[in-house]
């Protein structure tokens, strides 16, 4: 069985994502009942998006990593691992052998879990299966086994669905979005770690009284919310501190601003390819499960417009940089970079845990990202390997430069599974099973409702904004 899987893995690797993904997407579309021309178009657009993404990832190239190196040496901070950001990481993860198969496998696994009643979430956010592909990719790097990588990706999908089910009552109420849940590890993945801290800081009375007004924060720090401006500023600062000439300083600023705009544009093309498939999956399921209610699993992006989440996300920008510097004696080597624009995703599902209080959300964010920076440093070799074995045009100078992805490598489940799957297979299997069973009972016994967190917190009502429809 595992020999067959390894052979499949090798075969996929030889063909590469540009050939495999369109075929997989087309076949999946046909199974889900799409017309052949639509299914084929989806597959083709997906492949085109990959051509574009691999071209633009080249912008991150050699220059950036040499500047990172110079920065680390000149400033003596030891921050020599550069954060490539989630848009690039997503594409790279989809480009791995596990990533090639993750969408059909993810949909199938989700359907099976729905049928046997282990989850109430129908995850139509198939784009975010890249988080599971990412886990698979780093596990494949460290174990060399395609079978274990698939298993790790599957475990992370089940964890995401459980977290979505568990948090659904709280999320639906806080954000006033009935019928949805968020199986999106980029936000939900931080929740489990944050819950005990949330319990704690909710009981520190004076913190609650230091109310920060989300609108003031948004107006003051609004520029940091525009990724191209953020990219320009960070790029210039980095090159300046690295002691580059003025042409290189300005050039780097423009280059990073370009990364912030162009890679996401390419990712939007990928979404264009995947959306009709997601629609088909949703219709396929609703037809067959008529009368049953389930949560529609969405990207945590739907929560981000909330004022608290936005404000906390903006405040996370300077905090992540300070954390990286402060934690460098403790082993952090990650230089927060492209994913500085990602703060709202970290904050999105932490805010409901503290009844939408901006300051408390930022404190929780700082705790999970502080721990997360150590994970990103530990995962850098795996991420670097993922980049260098992909079809992307990134030159990594031999020997020293390394990359990581702040958003995803910082998620506790990423490092947890990476670590777990290095242990003997039996141990990994048993522990995974225990985690899943534990999460299942956690979901059953300890409902993540408001009561746990919003007792005596009148801010809850004020902070949760009304949904866009009213």
């Amino acid at each position, binding site marked *: 069985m595992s020999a067959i899987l390894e052979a499949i893995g090798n075969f996929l690797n030889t063909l590469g994502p540009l050939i495999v993904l369109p075929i997989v997407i087309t076949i999946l579309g046909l199974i889900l009942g799409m017309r052949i021309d639509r299914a084929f178009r989806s597959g083709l657009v997906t492949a085109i998006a990959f051509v574009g993404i691999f071209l633009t990832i080249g912008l991150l190239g050699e220059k950036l990593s040499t500047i990172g190196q110079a920065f680390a040496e000149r400033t003596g901070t030891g921050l020599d691992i550069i954060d490539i950001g989630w*848009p690039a990481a997503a594409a790279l993860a989809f480009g791995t052998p596990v990533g090639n198969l993750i969408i059909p496998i993810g949909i199938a696994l989700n359907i099976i879990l729905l049928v046997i009643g282990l989850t109430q979430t129908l995850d*139509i956010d198939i*784009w975010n299966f890249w988080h599971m592909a990412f886990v698979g990719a780093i596990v494949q790097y460290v174990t060399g086994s395609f079978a274990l990588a698939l298993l790790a990706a599957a475990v992370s999908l089940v964890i995401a669905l459980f977290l979505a089910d568990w948090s659904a009552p709280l999320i639906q109420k806080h*954000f006033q*979005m009935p*019928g*949805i849940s968020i199986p999106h590890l980029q936000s939900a993945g931080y929740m489990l770690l944050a819950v005990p801290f949330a319990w704690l800081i909710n009981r520190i009375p004076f913190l609650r009284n230091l109310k920060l007004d989300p*609108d003031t924060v*948004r107006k003051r720090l*609004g520029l940091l*919310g*525009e*990724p191209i401006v953020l990219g320009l500023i960070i790029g210039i600062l980095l090159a300046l501190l690295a002691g580059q000439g003025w042409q290189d300083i300005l050039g780097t600023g423009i280059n990073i601003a370009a990364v912030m705009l162009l890679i*996401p*544009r390419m*990712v*939007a093309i990928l*979404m*264009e390819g995947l*959306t*009709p498939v*997601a*629609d088909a999956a*949703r*219709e396929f399921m*609703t037809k067959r499960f008529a009368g049953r209610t389930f949560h*529609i699993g*969405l*990207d*945590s*992006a*739907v*929560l*981000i*417009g*909330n*004022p608290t989440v*936005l404000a906390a996300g903006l405040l996370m920008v300077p905090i992540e940089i300070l954390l990286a510097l402060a934690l460098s004696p403790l082993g952090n080597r990650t230089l927060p970079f492209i994913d500085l624009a990602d703060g*709202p*995703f970290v904050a999105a599902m932490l805010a409901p845990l503290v009844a939408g209080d901006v300051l408390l959300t930022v404190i929780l964010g700082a705790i999970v990202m502080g721990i997360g920076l150590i994970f990103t440093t530990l995962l850098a070799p795996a991420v670097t390997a993922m980049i260098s074995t992909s079809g992307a045009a990134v030159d990594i100078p031999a020997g020293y430069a390394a990359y990581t992805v702040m958003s995803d490598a910082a998620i506790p489940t990423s490092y947890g599974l990476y670590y777990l799957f290095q242990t003997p297979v039996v141990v990994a299997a048993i522990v995974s099973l225990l985690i899943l069973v534990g999460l299942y009972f956690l979901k059953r016994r300890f409902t993540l409702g408001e009561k746990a967190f919003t007792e005596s917190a009148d801010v809850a009502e004020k902070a949760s*904004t*009304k*949904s*866009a*429809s009213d």
Partner: protein
Amino acid sequence: MKKIYLVCATGIATSTMVRLRVEGFLREQGVEAAVQQMRVTELHADRIDADLIIATTSIPADVRGRAQVVDGIPLITGQGANETLRRILEILQPAS
């Protein structure tokens, strides 16, 4: 021509899903409109140049006064999608 902003958290993911839905629908209805995807953080109340904002995330209060705002989530989940599309059409082609 009417202008539509499609707003989500990143200007990439859910707004693309909504764009495909809305563009397909407008083509069927024979309505022309200029569609632009935006990040919610790029919205500034004094720089809004749109007749309609379709958002998959909540929109700051000061922006709400500048254009009609429609919740785009039903277009993604499928629940209530037809009502949402009808509302979009009403805003773009007010019965005169």
